[in-house]
């Protein structure tokens, strides 16, 4: 069995829609896989614009994940 664990962190509108902001996913090896798993679990995310950061770095294409990686779901920033 695939025990690779990925830590998911959600913020802003995404956390609100998921009703959680911090959980683990198992058996995923890249960010496209994470995105698919999340859309399966939380269909309402489909309509929401968000970026992904892996270990605090924004990514702009599918990125492979090591066990323990932190994948953050980031709606558009609105500081200031």
């Amino acid at each position, binding site marked *: 069995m695939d025990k690779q664990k990925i830590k998911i962190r959600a*913020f*802003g509108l995404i956390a609100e829609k998921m009703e959680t902001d911090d959980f683990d996913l198992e058996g995923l090896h890249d960010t496209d896989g994470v995105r698919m798993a999340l859309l399966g679990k939380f269909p309402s995310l489909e309509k929401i614009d968000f970026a992904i950061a892996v270990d605090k770095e924004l990514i702009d294409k599918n990125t492979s994940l090591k066990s323990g990686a932190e994948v*953050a779901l980031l709606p*558009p*920033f609105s500081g200031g």
Partner: protein
Amino acid sequence: MAKKIKNIFVQGPISPEFIGESIAHHSKKTGIGGHSIFLGQVRADKKEGNQEVEAIEYSSYLEMALEKAHEIREQTFEKYDLSCMHIHHSMGRVEKGEICLFVFTSSKHREPAINACNELVERIKKEIPIWGKEILSNKETNWKTNS
């Protein structure tokens, strides 16, 4: 060798007294000729259904925000000939009329301070993972978007 990462976050609003004190701290730095300051203030925007923004509640991806702020800080010191640079952003609830962002740059001549301050404000809004949730007069909420 890495420089210490500064905390940019303040719980709640940034008080005008804090800003005054921050300015006063620079009177010993007699090589400074100009300071540029930008302040963001929570606006009581009108929303649908005759609702108004009462407050904004800020949240952040803290670890990433501090790393990004550090990177912006280092790059801005590299690019402009500055004596000082200070960035403060609110976390948590800030009422309408209160200050949520304080960017403060100082230099020998005015141009670097002014240009750096403007660039910092743009970069903070675009690049730092902070989210503002508007609290409306009917207690409903709305996620703020930056233009």
